[in-house]
């Protein structure tokens, strides 16, 4: 999740916990992997970390830059735990 994803981890976690309550996902934990905001200069090719949302190339000052990372939320993986044996010992 990046700085321009438009998502605040604390709020997403709170919403997730509300939705998960009483469902099969109750008690599940969200793990966030924060990524930096990266841009590339289309003129000199430099890749740079965007600080204070300034997208000008720090090397050549070009304004022709493209965002490389940090504007999305990516669901990487889901860990599933099979608890049938543990929670339903009477099930045949």
């Amino acid at each position, binding site marked *: 999740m990046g700085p321009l994803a*438009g998502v605040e981890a604390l709020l997403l976690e709170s919403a997730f916990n509300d939705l998960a309550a009483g469902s099969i996902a109750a008690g599940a934990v969200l793990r966030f992997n924060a990524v930096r905001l990266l841009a590339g200069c289309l003129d000199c090719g430099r890749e740079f970390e965007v600080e204070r949302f300034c997208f000008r190339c720090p090397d050549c000052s*070009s304004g*022709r830059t493209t965002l490389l990372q940090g504007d999305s*939320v*990516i669901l*990487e993986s*889901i*860990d599933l*735990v099979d*608890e049938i044996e543990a929670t339903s010992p009477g099930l045949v």
Partner: protein
Amino acid sequence: MSSRTIEIRQELHQEARAAASRLRREMTRRGTLIVNLVSSPGAGKTSLLEATARRWRDHRRMAVLVGDLATDRDARRLQPHVPAVQLTTGGACHLELPLVQRGLEILGSVQDTLEFLFIENVGNLVCPASHDLGEHLRVVLLSTTEGDDKPGKYPKMFRSSQVLVISKLDLLPHVPFSLEAVAEDARQIQPDLAVLPVCALTGSGIDAWCDYLNFQRQRPLIEASACSE
């Protein structure tokens, strides 16, 4: 107890973005430029569209889908000039693609020959930034009364826009607002941003705005024809 990990590695908005791209391609094929107008409430989106419609009367075929939480006030303002459909979000703070598609269905055959489709988003500088509506151009309006320090406070909106329209230019002598300062602040975030000052009431800047839109409409059509060769 056993556990396993399912690798997903998908962007959460992936399907919505793909659907938006399909709409964009389809409208490019028809020769329609989609413009998503975003701003805080009261910045003058509807007034800009009224001025645009008056300027283009009989010259350009345009229609408007206009989003609001409630009422059809904006659509009724625009309907004397152009086909306009009100999209009420029932409290939601932004438009999403399914609402736009419903609006297009209501427009019916009108949409087949449009040169410009304007989508007037819900007044909000935050959430509309996260939703691709299939537009070719995202235009953010900022009025002189809102202050010239706003771009840096709403980076996602200004980064995702291609045009900044400064509205209510007639009030400039009465408010502490610098055109140079706002352009510089916005271009830190989006160096390619086009800046167009307008006043919808006096008509100042409306010609330049319309010329800009005409030019932009030609661009995707040229690119599309280059791609198909």
